[in-house]
């Protein structure tokens, strides 16, 4: 059992550095969101902010890529995502077609670069 979970210290770090700082935003959302009505105008603003923050997360991963993605040249990362988006629009918003095309461009580009 101990081998499966590792040290109790690591699990404590998981809860204190991973679970709590992440979950606190969900529970704060529950505290404020449970009182808001579906037709409320403030929801239009909250949705726009949620969408824009998500857009920031997307831009950050592309500009400051983690791990192995950092080994891919900038132009190939941006090109793969742009190609994925173009295919998504051309296929009447098929996420599947867009994701597959973007990934193919990335893999083909990496393979071609060697």
């Amino acid at each position, binding site marked *: 059992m101990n081998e499966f979970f590792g040290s109790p210290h690591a699990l404590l770090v*998981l809860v204190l550095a991973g679970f709590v700082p992440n979950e606190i*935003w969900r529970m704060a959302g529950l505290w*404020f*969101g449970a009182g808001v009505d579906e037709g409320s105008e403030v929801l239009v603003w909250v949705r726009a902010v949620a969408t824009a923050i998500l857009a920031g997360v*997307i831009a*950050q991963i592309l500009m400051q890529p983690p791990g192995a993605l950092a080994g891919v040249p900038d132009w190939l990362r941006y090109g793969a995502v742009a190609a994925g*988006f173009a295919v998504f629009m051309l296929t009447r918003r098929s996420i599947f077609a867009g*994701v597959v095309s973007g990934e193919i461009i990335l893999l083909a580009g990496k393979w071609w670069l060697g």
Partner: protein
Amino acid sequence: MALPPLDSPQWKSPIRAFAWGVSSVASTVLTLVLFATYLGIGALAHDSHFSLGWVLGSTLLVWAGPAQIILISTLGSGATAVQAAIAVTVSAIRLFPMVVSVLPLMKTPKTGRRHLVLATHFIAVTLWVECYRLLPKVPRERRIAFTHGLGCGLVTVCMVATTFGYVLAAKLPPLFAAAILLLTPLAFLLSTARNCKQISDVLALVLGLSLFPLVSMLHTGVDILISGISAGSIAYGVHWWRERGRA
């Protein structure tokens, strides 16, 4: 697979609503994206010398891909727990407006906050966009049970993927590691684009993408928050101005 019509007697039972939620996991390509992402997270945890139980615990408790990648890579590179906690909490701010905007779809006048705790825990990008797509097809009084089913189904798929990724880590070629990491921004972008209902959503997405590179030059540590609130508020301002013009 189609859900039964809103007035179908099949929706009478909360357990069936839960089951419809679980089976809706098969109706979205985002499940595949999550599967691949969690393969990557499992492999990353293995390579960073975390235990399998630890990374499975992180999938169950944290349940947000970017936060888990940040947690594993910061702790794995020798950062302190405090530094990791700060990085995780900054990345998790997005969950707040997501929860606030999606919960009103689930509640009835009788719903208390405690009924929504588990559904709230499941909310991350995938559940956020899928709730907008699927909940209108579910009778209001069964939406919490349905969301519980959808959330449990997705978490189960991701626990399996985490385990596979952890066990297979040594066999995954480096090319696939890059491809898996690209899935998150690609799938986030396309699912958010599909989720755009109003002009304010489209503007928020475009402005959010273009403001972040500018704001990130300030190196504030909360760049995403600044660019997100500014872009979202400008987008809302345009919406408000157009609505006023129409009235």
